[in-house]
């Protein structure tokens, strides 16, 4: 009893079969298992092993006193094996919070659960082994770490990029300041390829961040064993629903925005996404989390990510490429309108990506991920020092007040910005964006005050909203 879903109710059959096949006897008595607290909805087969051990303890086949020190988690097969069950890290953290010192999980999940300090984790592969552990059997060593996939798959690296000097510069700036980036360019020019390399330029995650990311990926079953150390890169298809993007459903599951937590969320073909999906991204972009409210409770999923988007410059994709573009002015306006909106407001940087020339393809790479990453880390360090004591950790997170307080301009830079504002090239909000980006460019160049060139470079990478373009026309 206790608000169990189908998978939980079915567990009585699994437990029955598993106990018999593990060489235990199933007691011939009426058994009541209480899943408390009663108001919480219980889901999934993860309770199997705990219930089975409970039955064994109640029928005195296992000593009950020692069982109270254990948290047990995992699905049982009919044959008595403990199956891989997602979410072990979250369970381990829960067990730690509940003051339990020991945890039994499926073997595949042992390394993941062991990430929680001060918890004795046993990875087992059968119910029999679990019973042995509880009865004081030999401690089970953690399984070997699985070979890193990087051994097989070549890690993307900025050194793979040829030409593209301006996009690479923009990429470095956006990584250094945590600025959301919009890339515009014809099909096949390398927008996606560039986006995939952003996580390799971002500074390494702290241990706390890595555990947070591992927990999220463990819950949705995307991760088996070990700590995730690489920043996530998520690229949902443009048909994704709002729930798929920010989470939802019943039971609520985290969406792509949460899976991209501490990493990069990449939206390719931005103009093709449904409006409701894009609108749903406003909250995570604003607050760094998603709140999902259901009749019985409200959940928050962390989702603080860098947004990178790519789009064709026009419906046919070839705007500006000689006479290849087939779009009229009306098509262009429609395309711009599809793009505009609250999401574009959060894009600090716009860069145009072009096809590299044959000569550029043969030239040596301009930089590498390692080099760029070092520059980014240096720039982030300066930002952390400057923003100490505020809510922001990087320039991209500064609000208007923080910009006013911390961004110091040289005289020429001040004049250039004022000029851009008076000729109507900037809105008030656009000015904020330019200031944030200029500050990051200055951080990369190790300038104490933002110089004129820093501001001008930021101006030339500014994202132009539809309204601003109309203003300038």
């Amino acid at each position, binding site marked *: 009893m206790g608000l169990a879903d189908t998978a939980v109710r079915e567990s009585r059959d699994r437990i029955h079969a598993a106990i018999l096949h593990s060489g235990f006897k199933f007691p011939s008595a009426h058994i009541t298992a209480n899943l408390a607290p009663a108001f919480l909805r219980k889901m999934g087969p993860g309770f199997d092993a705990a219930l089975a051990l409970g039955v064994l303890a109640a029928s005195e086949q296992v000593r009950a006193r020692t069982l109270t020190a254990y948290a047990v988690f995992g699905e049982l097969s009919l044959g008595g094996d403990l199956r891989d069950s997602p979410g072990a890290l979250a369970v381990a953290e829960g067990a730690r919070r509940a003051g339990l010192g020991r945890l039994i999980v499926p073997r595949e999940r042992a390394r993941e659960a062991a990430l929680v300090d001060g918890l004795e984790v046993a990875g087992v592969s059968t119910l029999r082994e679990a019973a042995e552990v509880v009865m004081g059997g030999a401690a089970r060593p953690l399984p070997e770490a699985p070979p890193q996939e990087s051994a097989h798959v070549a890690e993307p690296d900025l050194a793979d990029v040829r*030409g*593209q*000097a*301006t996009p690479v*510069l923009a990429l470095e700036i956006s990584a250094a300041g945590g600025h959301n980036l919009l890339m*515009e*360019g*014809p099909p096949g020019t390398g927008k996606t390829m560039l986006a995939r390399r952003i996580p390799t330029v971002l500074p390494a995650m702290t241990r706390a961040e890595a555990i947070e990311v591992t927990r999220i990926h463990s819950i949705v079953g995307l991760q088996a064993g070990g700590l995730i150390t690489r920043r996530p890169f998520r690229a949902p298809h443009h048909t994704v629903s709002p729930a798929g993007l920010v989470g939802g459903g019943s039971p609520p599951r985290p969406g792509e925005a949460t899976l991209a937590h501490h990493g990069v969320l990449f939206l390719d073909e931005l103009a093709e996404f449904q409006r409701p999906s894009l609108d749903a991204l406003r909250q995570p972009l604003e607050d760094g989390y998603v709140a999902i409210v259901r009749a019985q409770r409200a959940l928050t999923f962390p989702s603080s990510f860098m947004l990178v988007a790519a789009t064709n*410059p*026009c419906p046919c994709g*070839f*705007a*500006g*490429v000689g*006479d290849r*573009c087939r779009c*009229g*002015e*009306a098509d*262009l*306006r429609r395309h711009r309108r599809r793009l505009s909106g609250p999401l574009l407001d959060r894009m600090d940087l716009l*860069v*145009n990506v*072009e096809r*590299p*020339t044959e*000569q550029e393809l043969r030239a040596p790479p301009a930089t590498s991920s390692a080099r760029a990453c070092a520059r980014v880390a240096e720039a982030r360090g300066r930002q952390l020092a400057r923003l100490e004591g505020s809510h922001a950790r990087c320039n991209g997170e500064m609000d208007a007040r923080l910009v006013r307080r911390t961004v110091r301009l040289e005289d020429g830079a001040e004049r*250039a910005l004022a*000029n*851009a504002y008076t*000729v109507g*090239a900037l809105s008030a909000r656009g000015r904020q964006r330019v200031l944030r980006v200029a500050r990051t460019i200055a951080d990369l160049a190790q300038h104490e005050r933002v110089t*004129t*060139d820093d501001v*001008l*470079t930021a*101006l*030339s*990478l500014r994202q*132009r909203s539809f309204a601003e373009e*109309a203003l*300038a*026309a």
Partner: protein
Amino acid sequence: MSYACDCCIARAWLLSRLGGHLERARTRIEETLALSDEDLIAAVGGRNQEQVRSELRGADPETARRRTRSAGLELICRCDPRYPARLRDLASPPAVLHVAGGLERFLELIEKDPVAIVGARKGSSYGLEVARALGRDLGRAGLTVLSGMALGIDSAAHSGALAADAPTVSVLPGPSDRPYPSGRAPLHRRIIATGAAISELPPGASVWRWTFPARNRVIAGIAAMTVVVEAGGRSGALLTAAYAQAIGRPVGAVPGLVTSPHAAGSNRLLARGAKLVTGAQEVLDHLFGAGVRKAVSEERSPLEPDQQRLLAAIGDGHDTPAALARAGFPAEEGLARLATLELAGYVRRGPGGRFTVVP
């Protein structure tokens, strides 16, 4: 005061009533519109002739006047002595002009040597910049810029004039209280705030294919000179030029790349003797005699030598940061210099992040 005689109002009503019937005659629209009411009905009325005739007899001019007034329009008909004299050169001067933005103002504006700037809907960035600059500089020289508010070149010409705080006049293919295309409503509002929008069709009339060439003849009729900026081989702007030539008005054209389909029509005009126009000065020279009036160009902060080299490279077709890098302008400083040029008004960033030199 706004006034138009019953007979002319009835004629405007008839054009609106015949609407789709006139489609059949759209390739010879000028001759067709020159017919008398009776002949026009007989020519295109088909089986509905009797019906149209009786409706025409029963049409109440007062109702039409009330409708135009409530649409905020003023009227002038060809029987009025103040009717624009140049329009009378046409074989088929419009019976009534429906004016948005004020009749007095309109009549005054077209006294000031109106110059038509027309071209293709789908112009290149170069064409759009040239049209904008022509509109701006002619407006600054005190001439009225006249065009059709179509997408592309036409709109660029209007907005160029408005950017120089000069009034401009649009001739619409539909009724003048409803902007066509509707996406140009903001531009329409700006045009009638200081200038005027006119049409020969009464409020409520529909836009048909024939109303575009019909509109083009009105532009050619009002303008003292017509300049085609960019027109493809079959652009309607060529029709405007042909109407202008037919009544002996000067026609100019802006040269384009011989390899560009956007400029095939305008280049052909040049080959057949149209005046070569590279800027407002040639237009002024042609209208008033060489050197009589000087075009005042925009005041822009002077450029340093390296900026001038960058500008020259962009004008040469190195129109993106990457292309400029290949031409020897490194990306890092390049971005900052491009921003300087853009803010000073020497270049504009177009679709796909390509830069165009502003003349």
